[in-house]
């Protein structure tokens, strides 16, 4: 019944248009590559009337092209991104842009007049995250578009006996099938992630999380012609599924405690508690473990470098950006939306703060000592998770329900800004590595040697991405770190701070979370070394070959766009627009 309403209710359909577009895309992806010249003969005697039924038989030239699945998924994601962006363009803060979808499938404007519990909530916050998710997956799709025909050659060789023509057809078929598999999974990830962004019920959230995770396990293992691919996928799957199981157990404990998994109801019960119920605490702790794995926070990050280095670079980019953003959404929903007290600081601040400190330092030290650029980026992603966790810790100080939310909104805006621009330069650098990977390189630092002589523009782009990751002004990476640190400072240093009793006394009187801001700064300074090393080897070492990289025009354009975006979102009017967007989203999160 509810499924029917979901589709038939015009309001619901309008509100969830980006998601429905994804579903349409999935269906098309299954149908179109199978269209063929298949006909069947009408069973009328003495006639030979054949009716085409389009499925089966020899496929059309267009539908069998290995480019088609990529085109479908990229355009679907582009369409969804535009729809989500469009819904954010005009007056995102008005009530008419907040919707709740009830269990009956009906959509309620500004969540008013609901009797049934709400499953999904659509507001500025979730829409922004959807834009990020779709954007990342679209870039990944573009990148794979130009490299998927790396067909597993050994499989074709087995078929050589069948003759040359047959051979070509098999190559085409395999390419096409592989493409379909990949892009289908990509759209599944998109669907799962957007469910996570929209969910207002922990169980729905978990379903989205699992949909995204399971698909991404396969994506990691997708490069099965290499040895590392399946190994990485296996590791990632085992660790990830254990983490998910723990999270599910945590959710079940919360259900045991509350009898309801609505986030708003959980929050209400949490407030009503006199002292913290151990059942609730345990449930929450288990969920945090899952999130720790998703955002690759220490000590749950150990699978991440293996997974990143084994997966195809664009997929690794998805893990480092969209997957991480998804993890932080869950973290915000669980920690901030549920457990914030009426006043004062949340009980988890010390834990998250400690995790942040360990994560960012460990990540940077790991990156310093890794010679594989993909592992280096993986560790740098761990370090960035640490910076974001520091912001979450500061959020725990200032997001209490009854205080004003100026600082808290700044912190959430900073996190969202960081997660958004991270797409440009983190995924951008993975895209560059993906170009190298197409020629079988990209897993050693030596592979980057002299890239500037082979491809000046691409090398410049990678260098700018590295600088932005390190946080050099005026790139967007600097702006995002500046906002994060501003948030932490605002949460801990007050206007009345005075140095009358001496410098050290004033420093000692600060809340300890302040030192996380200092640690962010120190870690950024430390990280300069390994980021600049990439630039150094690209510009000043001898290239192993003089050959140019693969042609891949779309990928090149995408990389250039990422580079321009990295600059433009750092300074200038575009940065302002994005800041408005994220601060609106932050306001939406707290309203």
């Amino acid at each position, binding site marked *: 019944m509810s499924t029917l309403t979901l589709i038939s209710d015009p309001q619901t359909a309008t509100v969830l248009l980006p998601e429905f577009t994804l579903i349409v895309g999935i269906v098309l992806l299954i149908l179109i590559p199978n269209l063929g010249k298949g006909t069947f003969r009408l069973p009328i005697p003495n006639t030979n009337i054949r009716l085409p039924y389009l499925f089966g038989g020899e496929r059309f030239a267009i539908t069998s092209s290995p480019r088609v699945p990529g085109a479908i998924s990229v355009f679907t994601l582009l369409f969804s991104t535009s729809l989500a962006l469009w819904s954010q363009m005009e007056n995102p803060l008005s009530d008419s842009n907040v919707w709740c979808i009830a269990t009956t499938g009906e959509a309620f404007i500004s969540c008013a007049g609901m009797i049934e519990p709400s499953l999904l909530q659509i507001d500025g916050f979730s829409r922004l995250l959807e834009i990020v998710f779709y954007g990342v997956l679209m870039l990944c799709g573009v990148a794979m578009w130009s490299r998927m025909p790396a067909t597993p050659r050994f499989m074709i060789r087995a078929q050589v006996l069948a003759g040359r023509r047959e051979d070509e057809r098999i190559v085409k078929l395999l390419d096409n099938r592989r493409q379909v598999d990949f892009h289908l999974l990509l759209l599944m990830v998109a669907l799962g992630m957007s469910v996570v962004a929209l969910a207002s019920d922990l169980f729905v959230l978990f379903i989205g999380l699992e949909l995204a995770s399971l698909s991404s396990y396969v994506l990691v293992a997708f490069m099965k012609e290499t040895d590392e691919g399946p190994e990485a996928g296996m590791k990632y799957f085992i660790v990830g599924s254990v983490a998910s199981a723990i999270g599910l157990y945590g959710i079940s404990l919360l259900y045991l405690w509350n009898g309801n998994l609505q986030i708003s109801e959980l929050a209400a019960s949490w407030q009503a508690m006199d002292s913290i119920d151990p059942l609730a605490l345990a449930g929450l702790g288990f969920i945090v473990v899952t999130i720790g794995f998703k955002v690759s926070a220490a000590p749950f990050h150990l699978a991440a470098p293996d997974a990143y280095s084994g997966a195809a670079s664009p997929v690794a980019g998805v893990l480092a950006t969209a997957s991480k953003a998804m993890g932080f959404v869950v973290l915000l929903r669980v920690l901030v939306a549920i457990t914030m007290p009426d006043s004062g600081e949340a009980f988890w601040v010390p834990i998250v703060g400690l995790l942040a400190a360990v994560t960012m330092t460990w990540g940077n030290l790991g990156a310093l000592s890794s010679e594989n650029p993909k592992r280096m980026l993986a560790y740098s992603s761990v370090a960035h998770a640490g910076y974001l966790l520091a912001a979450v810790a500061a959020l725990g100080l200032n997001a209490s329900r009854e205080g004003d939310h100026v600082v808290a909104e700044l912190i959430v805006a900073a996190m969202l800004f960081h997660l958004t621009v991270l797409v440009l330069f983190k995924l951008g650098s993975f895209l560059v590595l993906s170009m190298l990977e197409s020629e079988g390189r990209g897993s050693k630092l030596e592979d980057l040697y002299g890239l500037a002589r082979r491809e000046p523009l691409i090398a410049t782009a990678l260098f700018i991405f590295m600088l932005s990751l390190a946080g*050099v*002004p005026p790139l967007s990476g600097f702006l995002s770190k500046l*906002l994060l640190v501003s948030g932490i400072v605002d949460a801990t240093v007050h206007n009345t701070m*005075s140095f009358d009793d001496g410098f050290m006394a*004033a420093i000692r009187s600060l809340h300890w979370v302040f030192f996380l801001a200092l640690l962010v700064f120190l870690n950024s300074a430390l990280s300069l070394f390994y980021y600049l090393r990439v630039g150094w080897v690209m510009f000043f070492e001898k290239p192993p070959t003089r050959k140019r990289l693969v042609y891949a025009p779309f990928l090149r354009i995408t990389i250039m766009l990422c580079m321009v975006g990295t600059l433009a979102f750092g*300074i200038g009017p575009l940065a302002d627009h994005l*800041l408005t967007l994220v601060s609106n989203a932050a306001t939406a999160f707290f309203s």
Partner: protein
Amino acid sequence: MFGNPLTILTLGPICAGFAFMLVAWAAPPSKRKEISQYIRLLIFAFSLLLLSLSTLMFLESYSGISWTSLGLSDYAYDNCINAEVAIEAGGCSLVDGFGVSWHVGVDGLSFPMVWLTTLLIPISMLVEWNAKKGAQFHSLILMMEGALIGVFVSLDLFVFYTFWELTLIPMFFLILLWGGDDRKYAAQKFFIYTFTASVLMLLGILVMYYFTRVPVWEGNITGRAFDITLMASSSNNLGSAFLGGFGMQKAVFLLLLVGFAAKMPSVPVHTWLPDAHVQAPTAGSMLLAGVMLKMGAYGFLRIAVELLPAAMVHYQLLLIILGMVSLVYGAMVCLGQTNLKRMVAYSSVSHMGLIFLGIATMQPLGIAGAIFMMLAHGVISPYLFAVCGAFKHHYHTLEIGSMRGIAKFSPWLGGHMMTAWMGSLGLPLMAGFVAEVAIMIAFWMAFGWWVILPALTLIITAAYYLWSMQRTIFEGGDAGELPDTLHDEPVDISWHENAGMFAMAVCAVLLGVLPFIFFDMMSSYSNDFVTEVLLDVLNEVIP
């Protein structure tokens, strides 16, 4: 916003440099040589255009700006007067969201530096007219010009810092791609030193940013701003409560000091300079010594001293020690050098020490002298490096003892060498003398007979210059001695080197004979600063 002449001076060369670079890069190989010659001419003409623009801006009769009557926080060509209101109105904001604005303006402190930059760019191009891959070389210099001017004119710390880092990139490539044999090491060292120091400086800037709360304007989500004029007004209003208290001011001052001292450079963070200079191409050395070192001194005055005067008073002794040590140590090291360029590089360290001394006197004359020192050194030290470069170019050596009797083989080079050396050791009627005298008098006014210490060091300066002159220009008997590295007949410098050097010689003498051209605006700036800010602070600190 873009009609402002300072914006044109900043962004114009950067964009033009990029454009020329692209054209040179995209030119078809068959015509590359021809095109690159045209580009070189165009770039030179463009830089002359900028020079005439900055000169017109300077001439009171043309621009109508009375430089000596600018108040302390008044800036000429300010595109954002009364920043608090103007930024909110959107006239000059760059990113509202975190309070960055495109705020430019010049006063008696920064304008001489802007003019100096526009002057030195065409001269350094002229001196290195025939550089390899000339189109790229000269485009890089043009980009460098924009970045350098950006540092001097921006009144927003974010933009300031961006330009500050941006200057590194062209200089890095100039050293790395056109440098001497050991260029990789030198470029790396240059980059690491200055970058690390500027990270510390960034920390200081961020602390100031966090304490510069502004009334929240539309879209500013952090509620703070990077604008220097806003910081200056809150520094004036809050006094010792600025940055939360005196303790924080001291800490920030030290952070900024490290950043700026490494650029100036001052002992003990000077060791990158000799390596960078020795390996850099001539034009690179000229700009490095002429303008980039001044960035350190300028930033120190504009940010550390102007915004944190109380901390400056507190660390007066530290500044004197740093200045004295740089002065004496630089001079002593010069005495022991056998490499001409290295000697000149260390003499820069020594002269930069004088700037610290001038500032530490806290006298109007001393600060004006320090600013004039920046200008004088900015004209004379490129002259020195141009001579060194010509020497290296024609005799393939930089060793002091290996060649005697330049005056005989290359009379023009010998003459220029003598002029430059004399200018740098402080010959009266040349620019360096004015600055030294001003600083010494101020030092005497402030500390009495202690002035003997820096004054005596000037004797060492004279000693190493005269000694090196004796060993290179003269001596060698009637036949002279040619270095082993020279295999052809010795020749004199070419016309373009000669022209460039003449231009610098004329400027050095002109500024020595008629120092008031720039000294007036500098002393009006320092007078205002001392009487309006420093005296209050002194009264507060020493009641």
